[in-house]
């Protein structure tokens, strides 16, 4: 009935949009927009890779010519944001030094690794791919979208100037501890970090002085440039840390050098939740199925999410893939809820909070008109073990469809799903063509 009433409006709508526009309407789903109330019987409209409209099915008009997707009985929510992953056979710094800010993970990622397809099937649309925690600073991280990729460029998220985006990976505690030149104690670790940031500051000051005096700048130092980006706030420091005292050391260093920090793993977060909240640091949590496995994680507890929420901290989640599989990412939110975190904050943590932690909350993380059309279609409630990701959409393109047998293989596993499948298929195709 309402359709007829609004026919005039519809005509205007279709006329104002290019006739070549790719418009799709997902009708009838339970929609969790994250930035607003859940919509019981909703419609999501996307166009040209962006979200055009969202609302109750009764209110939203479907543009003429839009491709209709029946989403009755499904749940739609924003694509998941994994703030910490190691997919793509990623590497960072080598054994030569504990602090290697010039190293960039973009130079190591294999985009044909099947981990990407698996992550798509888990509903992850955006991730922060990082080097490991065996260094105090192991390199520059990379923010990616899990698009269908042949080459690394297909994964990148670019700023307005066309530069790829990423942060800085740091770590403290036992992982970076080894023989010199790596630190042998916690105090030494902090001292090494401090010394490097001071050198970078001095380098920055020289550059500024030279610019002022219109003299030649000091020789370009890529490592210091990266640290300057951290200190200016351009790049976020993603900091692996577990024990309560190590967490506070990170917060001190962050304050001392002015870098913005997101705390990762944070096994003891529940012990120092108030301090973390007061410092304004974001926290990216991971729950594993039992405490321990390493000394620093002996008090790892599902309740960190609840305690941090109560303290008012910004809480996100990560897979640390392969520590946990990207296909079980939603389980992170569910385990936090199991231990008392609110459903609302847990789902926020899987999406918009993660987006905030990588400075992309203006583009992704919620189903807001104007944002990228990154969303997932679920068979049921996002926190239920029985729910499967049915479809994953990125920039308005479907990158995973569980109804497709080839895609489904990556959702469940099976023979050959560990191989660099894309390369393999491409080779076969090339051979067949000859």
């Amino acid at each position, binding site marked *: 009935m309402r359709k007829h009433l609004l026919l005039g409006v519809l005509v205007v709508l279709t006329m104002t949009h290019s006739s070549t526009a790719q418009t799709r309407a997902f009708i009838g789903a339970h929609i969790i927009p994250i930035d607003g109330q859940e919509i019981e019987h909703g419609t999501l409209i996307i166009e040209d890779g962006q979200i055009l409209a969202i609302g109750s099915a009764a209110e939203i008009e479907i543009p003429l010519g839009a491709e209709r997707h029946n989403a009755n009985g499904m749940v739609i929510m924003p694509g998941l944001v994994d703030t910490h992953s190691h997919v793509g056979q990623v590497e960072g710094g080598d054994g030569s030094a504990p602090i290697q800010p010039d190293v960039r993970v973009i130079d190591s990622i294999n985009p044909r690794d099947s981990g990407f397809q698996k992550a798509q099937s888990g509903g992850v649309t955006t991730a922060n791919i990082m080097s490991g925690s065996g260094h105090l600073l192991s390199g520059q991280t990379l923010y990616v979208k899990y698009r269908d990729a042949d080459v690394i460029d297909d994964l990148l998220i670019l700023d307005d100037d066309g530069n790829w985006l990423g942060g800085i990976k740091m770590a403290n505690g036992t992982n970076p501890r080894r023989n010199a030149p790596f630190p042998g104690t916690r105090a030494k670790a902090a001292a090494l970090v401090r010394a490097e940031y001071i050198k970078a500051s001095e380098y920055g000051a020289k550059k500024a002085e030279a610019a002022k005096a219109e003299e030649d700048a000091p020789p370009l130092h890529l490592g210091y440039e990266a640290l300057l980006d951290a200190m200016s706030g351009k790049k976020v420091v993603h900091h692996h840390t577990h024990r309560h005292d190590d967490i506070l050391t990170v917060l001190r260093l962050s304050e001392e050098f002015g870098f913005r920090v997101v705390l990762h793993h944070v096994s003891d977060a529940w012990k120092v939740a108030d301090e973390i909240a007061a410092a304004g640091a974001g926290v990216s949590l991971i729950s594993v199925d*039992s405490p*321990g496995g390493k000394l620093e994680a002996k008090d790892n507890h599902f309740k960190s999410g609840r305690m941090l929420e109560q303290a008012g901290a910004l809480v996100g989640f990560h897979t640390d893939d392969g520590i946990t599989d990207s296909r079980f990412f939603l389980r992170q939110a569910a385990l936090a*809820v199991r231990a008392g975190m609110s459903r609302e904050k847990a789902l926020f943590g899987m999406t918009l909070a993660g987006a905030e932690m990588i400075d992309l909350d203006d583009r992704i993380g919620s189903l807001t008109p104007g944002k990228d059309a990154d969303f997932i279609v679920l068979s049921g409630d996002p926190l239920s*073990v029985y729910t499967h990701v049915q479809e994953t959409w990125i920039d308005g393109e479907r990158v995973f469809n569980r109804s497709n047998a080839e895609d489904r293989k990556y959702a469940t596993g099976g023979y050959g799903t560990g191989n660099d499948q894309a390369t393999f298929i491409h080779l076969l195709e090339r051979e067949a063509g000859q």
Partner: protein
Amino acid sequence: MNKVLFAITALLLFHSSSTAQIAVKGDMVYTMAGDPIENGVVLLRNGKIERVGRFDVPSGYEVIEAAVVTPGLIDAHTVVGLAGYLNQPEDQDQVERSAPMQPELRAIDAYNPREALVTWVRGFGVTTIHTGHGPGVLVSGQTMIVKTVGNDVQEAVINPAAMVAVTLGNGARASSGSPGTRSKMIAMLRSELIKAQNYTGEDARDLRVEAFKAVLDGEMRMLVTVERAHDILTTLRLAEEFGIDIVLDSASEAYLVTDQIKAAGVSVITHPTMARHGGERANATFEAASILRGADIPFALQSGFEAYVPKTRVILFEAGVAAANGLSFDEALASITIDAARLLGVEDQIGSLEVGKDADIALYDGDPFEYTTHAIGVIINGKLESTEVR
């Protein structure tokens, strides 16, 4: 849930001895012996199950209520109690690397019933574990079956010498020396089994050979941790050659050779559903249990062995994910209760809520497999051992 907690608290205040008479009431009681009972009651007396059904609780019983009541869960293969949670050299007793074959190592000599991970898994409803020497060398030692209770292993043990743990494939490849290849692994096993065939012990006892002899005599089964399809078939050949009972463990490529496994009449303790798909498990599938079910091969789930984090998995969670990947709810629950009991040969004592069996019970405030449901109580041998809300 408050009601449940109150009931449990009341019980703790008034009674907690093993001789107490307890009535467990469940909105849904999964007995694993027949259909689930709505508004069911399980009476416990002297550590055993006295009565199961739908009836009014007789006087003299302390009442515990929960939304869902199941038999205590059985983890068909773990290393909990030997592989400690701190993961430091001094708490890792699941593998001795001084030699590739040491079947004489007994799990009972290493098990720590007070280990944090024993308490951890019990909190989720796990009451019995098949634990012991783990994968990582060709023959690592023996396993045993214990309850997750007791201050010493004697109180906990059901079967002190259940199986001999063997690993084949890359997991058994020695960093130096033998075995360096798959063929060598089998050659070494064959040689020991032949020695055991000829063993009398008259001149001098050899505990290593005696352990293999126990396998030949059917006193202990051989638990073979194996992943690749061709290694599974090698295992079946060896078993046939010597006429020994084996159990396939992990077996992530079992789905490629279900016909052969079925024909051999062998059971599988399949890998944790959420086991990482890497290394020799690169071809694993979340649907492994469902495929075995479809092939009519007896199986149970396990938490397995983890070298890092999480130091142990929890079979409650593994079964839940199996239920989301092709098993029915009942089949998934069976894989960590009655089917696990059958596979371990202890089904007369545990695994279902039937009169005369041990009073081992797990309590939940909802569907036990849902991520957001809580384990709210665990009863072992008729005694409330845990009231933590997990």
